[in-house]
């Protein structure tokens, strides 16, 4: 049995550990940013949901860095 799942992160295919959560992916892809926005399969996920949301084969995850300049 494979120990990884194939997901798409920011448009690119990635193999990540089975049972990885969004919190794990933020660590893995070094996306730590206090203003980070995470999109999981087209849905916005609040930070309180990162640790509880597991990714599965074929999922799409986007890390979005919003802009605050004017």
């Amino acid at each position, binding site marked *: 049995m494979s120990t990884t799942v194939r997901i798409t992160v920011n448009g690119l295919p990635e193999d990540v550990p089975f049972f990885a959560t969004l919190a794990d992916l933020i660590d893995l892809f070094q996306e730590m940013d206090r203003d980070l926005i995470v999109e999981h399969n087209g849905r916005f996920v609040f930070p309180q949901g990162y640790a509880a949301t597991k990714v599965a084969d074929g999922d799409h995850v986007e890390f979005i860095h919003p802009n*605050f300049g*004017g």
Partner: protein
Amino acid sequence: MLTTEETRRYSRQMQLPEIGLKGQTKIAAGRVVIAGLGGLGSIGAYYLAAAGVGHLRLVDRDRVALDNLNRQILHASADIGRSKAASAAEKLTRLNPHCRFEAIETDIGYGNVEALIEGCNVIFDATDNRATRQVLNSASVKKRVPFVYGGISGWEGTASTFIPGQTPCFSCLFPPMAETVEAEPPPALGPTAGLVASLQCLDTLRLLIGLVPRLAGRLQQFSGSTMEFRTLPIDRNPHCPVCSRLQCPSSP
């Protein structure tokens, strides 16, 4: 009541069935506070004044600097050192003498924000930092005034419209937190500011006319490096410290 001159001035936009005389009259009765007169505010103020928004309150604490002029097209070389609010009011009066412009040179803080948005139908966010947006958002939620957010950084831009009690508020997405050190200003490119501010203007006009704001309940991301728009549906955060106690208006 529009004058003959005004009817002629706005005739091209009044051709739109959603605007017409009725919509233009609503635009003329509109009051918008533009918070910040930099890259976003230059474009926002210009288009809203040109479209005939009756009253624009122009707020900025800064003075025009040389490195503003690559994008802040309300201001010119001769304005360096002048108050941005005064510079903006002068240009906008020249553009459209039918509108009323109130130039206010001040910092926006918790102590004055409610006075600054008093009587306004829309808060047009053209600030350049997260902390001031938190201040504007708190007043938006408290006074139930829609908040049209825009932000830029280099090739990228973000926009959303927050309707208190109906959509997420700014703090639902970006919870308030102590600002430690002032962040280094990000790179800023004029056309990105122009594009994001134009999206904000469209939704501001929609709000004034009474149409559904299309950036409500969605975070709009634009990348000028790929020329792609991404739309992310967003929900209210049940744990939001600012707006979670506001009830959704009951459906008719």
